[in-house]
C-alpha cells in the first residue's frame, strides 16, 4: 500500500518534470508514462497475490501520480506558461486535460496490475497487449496534442537498437567496445553509397540505387565484416587493450570519412583512380532514399509515423532473435567466457572465435542501425558519429543493467530522452523566459545558460556514479548484481581471486 503510494509519488515527479518543461497538453503524455510506471512497478509487483491487490495497487499508484499531475498542470499554467510566452489555456482546459491525464494514469495502472494476475501465460500476453497498445497509440497521441517528440523518440529507438547490439558485446561477452559508433558510421555510409545518387554524380554515371530493404542488410554485413577485420588481430589481446583499439577505431573511422573527400590513387605519376570526392568530406552525403512500401509514405518528413512503426517492428524482431541467442549454445559460451575465460576455453570453447562472433554480431547491429539512421535523417555526416555516440550507447547499456534487455531499453529511453528532449527543452524554456522578459535584466541573463553544454559532464557523472553506487544498473539482471558488487562477494569468491595466480596465466592464448 505505502509502496504503491511511494511509486505513485515517484512517477508523479517524473510527470511534473514533463509538464513543467512542455506545458500545453503534455499532461496526457505524462499520464501515459505515469500509468506505465504505476502499473509495471506497483500493480504488477504487489505483495498481495490476488488480482484485486494488483488492481488496487496499480490504481492507487496511478491515482497518486494523477493527483500530482493535475496539481502541477495547474501550477505550471499559473506560473510558468505566461513567463515563457506561451498562450494561456482556459481554466476549463487546464482542468480537463489534467483530469484526463490522471485518468489515463489510473486506468493504465489498474489494467497492468490486473493483467499481471491473470492465470498462466495469459498474464504475459495481456501485459504485452497493453504495452503494445500504448506503443501503438503513442504516435497518434503525439500528433494530436502536438507534442513533437516523435522524431526524437525515433532517434532514441535507433540508439536502443544500438544498445541492444552493444549489450551482446559488453553485457553477454564482457568485451568493452568503445568504438561502437564506427560501425554505426559504416552502416550509414554504406547506405549513403548504395542508395543515393552521390557516387554516380561524382563519377558521371547513373548508379543503380539499391532498395532500402536490401541496404540495411548489406550495411549490417559490411559493419560485421569490419568488425571481423578489426577484431581478428585484436581480440586475442587482453580486455583493456581491446577497449583502446576500439576507441582508436572509433576515432579514425569518422576521420577517414571526413578526409576521403580527395580520394585517388596515383603511382609513379600515373593516375590509377582519378582523384574525386568519395565521401563528401565534412558535408557528408545526402539525400539517401527512404524506404518504399506500398501504402506507406516514408518520404514525407512531416509525418514520421511509418518510420516509428517500422523501427518498433525491427526492435521487437531483434529482441526476439537476441533471446534465442541467449538461451543457446552460443549465448552460454559468451557468458561462460565473460565469467572465466580460462575455464571456458578448458571446456572446449574457442575463445577467439567466440569473441569474434560476439564482436561482429554487435557490429552488425550497429551497421543495421546506421543504415536505418542514414535513411531516417536522409544523409550520412561525419559529425554524427563521434566518440560521444559510443559513450552514450555504453551509458544506456550500463544505466539499465548490463546483460539485461528490459534494462537496456529503459536505460536507453532515459538517456536518449534526457539528452535529446529534456536538456534541449530546458535550454529552450530558459531562453524563451529570457526573451519574453528582455526588459528584466535578471531574467534576460538566463539566455546564456545552456544546460546542453553540460551533457558530456552529465554522462560522465552517470557513468562514475553508476559504477560507484549501482554497478548492476537500474534494472539489474539478478546474475550481474552480485558479480559487480565485488566487495560484497562471497568469501569463497574473494579467496579464489587471490589464489588464482598460477592457474590464470595462460600462454596458449598469447602464442
Amino acid at each position: 500500500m505505502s509502496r504503491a503510494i511511494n511509486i505513485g509519488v515517484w512517477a508523479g515527479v517524473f510527470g511534473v518534470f514533463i509538464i513543467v518543461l512542455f506545458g500545453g497538453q503534455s499532461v496526457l503524455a505524462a499520464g501515459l508514462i505515469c500509468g506505465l510506471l504505476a502499473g509495471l512497478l506497483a500493480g504488477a509487483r504487489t505483495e498481495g497475490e490476488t488480482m484485486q491487490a494488483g488492481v488496487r495497487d496499480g490504481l492507487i499508484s496511478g491515482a497518486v501520480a494523477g493527483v500530482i499531475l493535475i496539481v502541477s498542470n495547474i501550477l505550471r499554467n499559473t506560473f510558468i506558461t505566461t513567463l515563457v510566452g506561451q498562450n494561456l489555456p482556459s481554466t476549463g482546459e487546464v482542468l480537463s486535460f489534467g483530469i484526463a491525464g490522471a485518468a489515463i494514469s489510473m486506468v493504465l495502472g489498474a489494467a497492468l496490475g490486473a493483467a499481471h494476475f491473470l492465470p498462466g501465460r495469459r498474464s504475459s500476453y495481456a501485459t504485452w497487449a497493453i504495452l503494445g497498445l500504448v506503443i501503438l497509440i503513442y504516435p497518434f497521441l503525439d500528433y494530436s496534442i502536438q507534442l513533437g517528440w516523435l522524431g526524437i523518440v525515433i532517434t532514441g529507438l535507433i540508439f536502443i537498437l544500438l544498445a541492444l547490439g552493444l549489450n551482446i558485446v559488453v553485457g553477454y561477452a564482457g568485451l568493452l567496445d568503445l568504438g561502437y559508433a564506427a560501425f554505426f558510421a559504416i552502416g550509414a555510409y554504406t547506405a549513403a553509397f548504395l542508395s543515393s545518387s552521390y557516387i554516380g554524380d561524382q563519377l558521371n554515371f547513373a548508379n543503380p540505387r539499391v532498395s532500402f530493404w536490401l541496404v540495411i542488410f548489406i550495411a549490417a554485413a559490411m559493419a560485421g565484416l569490419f568488425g571481423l577485420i578489426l577484431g581478428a588481430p585484436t581480440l586475442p589481446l587482453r580486455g583493456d587493450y581491446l577497449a583502446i583499439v576500439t576507441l582508436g577505431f572509433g576515432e579514425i573511422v569518422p576521420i577517414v570519412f571526413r578526409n576521403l573527400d580527395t580520394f585517388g590513387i596515383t603511382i609513379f605519376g600515373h593516375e590509377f583512380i582519378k582523384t574525386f570526392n568519395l565521401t563528401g568530406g565534412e558535408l557528408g552525403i545526402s539525400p539517401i532514399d527512404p524506404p518504399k512500401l506500398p501504402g506507406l509514405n516514408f518520404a514525407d518528413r512531416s509525418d514520421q509515423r511509418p518510420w516509428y512503426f517500422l523501427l518498433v517492428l525491427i526492435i521487437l524482431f531483434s529482441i526476439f532473435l537476441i533471446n534465442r541467442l541467449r538461451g543457446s549454445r552460443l549465448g552460454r559460451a559468451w557468458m561462460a567466457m565473460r565469467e572465466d575465460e580460462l575455464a571456458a576455453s578448458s571446456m572446449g570453447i574457442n575463445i577467439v572465435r567466440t569473441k569474434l562472433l560476439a564482436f561482429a554480431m554487435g557490429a552488425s547491429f550497429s551497421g543495421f542501425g546506421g543504415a536505418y539512421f542514414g535513411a531516417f535523417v536522409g544523409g550520412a555526416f561525419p559529425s554524427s558519429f563521434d566518440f560521444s555516440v559510443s559513450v552514450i550507447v555504453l551509458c544506456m547499456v550500463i544505466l539499465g543493467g548490463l546483460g539485461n534487455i528490459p534494462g537496456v531499453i529503459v536505460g536507453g529511453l532515459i538517456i536518449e530522452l534526457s539528452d535529446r528532449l529534456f536538456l534541449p527543452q530546458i535550454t529552450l524554456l530558459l531562453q524563451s523566459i529570457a526573451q519574453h522578459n528582455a526588459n528584466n535584466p535578471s531574467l534576460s541573463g538566463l539566455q546564456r545558460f545552456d544546460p546542453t553544454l553540460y551533457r558530456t559532464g552529465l554522462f560522465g557523472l552517470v557513468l562514475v556514479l553508476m559504477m560507484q553506487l549501482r554497478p548492476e544498473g537500474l534494472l539489474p539482471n539478478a546474475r550481474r548484481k552480485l558479480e559487480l558488487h565485488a566487495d560484497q562477494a562471497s568469501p569463497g569468491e574473494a579467496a579464489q581471486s587471490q589464489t588464482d595466480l598460477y592457474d590464470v596465466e595462460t600462454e596458449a592464448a598469447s602464442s
Partner: protein
Amino acid sequence: MATNILEAQGIVKQFGGLTAVNNVDFVIPKGTICSLIGPNGAGKTTFFNMITGLYVPTSGSMIFDDQSIVGLKPDQVTARGVGRTFQNIRLFANMTALENVLVGQHARLKANLLGILLQTRAVKAEEERARLRAIELLEFVGLGRQRVDEMSKNLPYGDQRRLEIARALATNPKLLLLDEPTAGMNPHETDALTRLMRQIRDELGITVLLIEHDMKVVMGISEKVTVLDHGGKIAEGLPEVVRSNEQVIEAYLGKGAAAQGKGGGGVRKAVVQSAEGR
C-alpha cells in the same frame, strides 16, 4: 591401438629461470586411475596445465590417443577428449548449475548461428538432448534435481566440486584430470568422492588422472602413483611400492627424517603416516 591414453616424454617447463617441470616421462595406461603426488610447488598443476594446453611445454612430446597435442589450444585439447577440473574451483559463478554443465557440452553440440536464429528442428532437438544429458550428469555426480537451477556460486563448497566434475564429464572426455578434488572436504565427503571417481572409471570407462594430497585417497584407488618433487619425477609405480620409497619419504619429510624413518614436522608427518597406515 596403443595401450596408453597419454604418453609424455621429456617434458620440461621453465618459467624464466625457474624449472617447474624437469624432464618428466609419464604414461597413463587406458582405463586406469593414476595419481600424481608431490609436495607443494612440485609442478603437478603445471603438468596438468601442459596437458590441457594452458601452458606450452618448453620441450618434450605429449601424445594423447596416438596424436601429438603439444601446441594445441585448450579448446582443441578438450575436443580431443581431455576434461579437467581446477585446483581452485573455477565454475561460471553467475550461471546456474545446469548452464555450467551445458557449457561443458559446448564442443559436443553442433548448433551454429544460423540454426540458432532460425531454431531449426535439429537445433531444438539437440538442445533438448543436451539438457537431459546435463541433468543426468548432475545426478550422476550426486547433485539432485532441486539444485539444477541454483546459481553455481550459491552452492555449498562440496557441491561446487561435484559440479566441476559434472562439467568436466560433460565434455565427454576419454581422460579426466582432477586437480585435488577432495581438498577442503570432510572425511565423509571424501569417501563419497572416492566412490564417484571409481564409478567414473568403471561405469563410464573414463581414464582418470588425479592430483591429490590425501594419501588415503591416493593409496586407496590408484593403480599407479607418480611422485614429483622440485619438478622432477622421483618415483613411480604401485602405491605400495611408492609408499615405501626412500626418496619419497625424504621429499615429504626432509633428509634427516628419511634416515631415521620417522620424525619430521606436524602436518606432513601425518600425511605420510596416514599413507603408511593403510
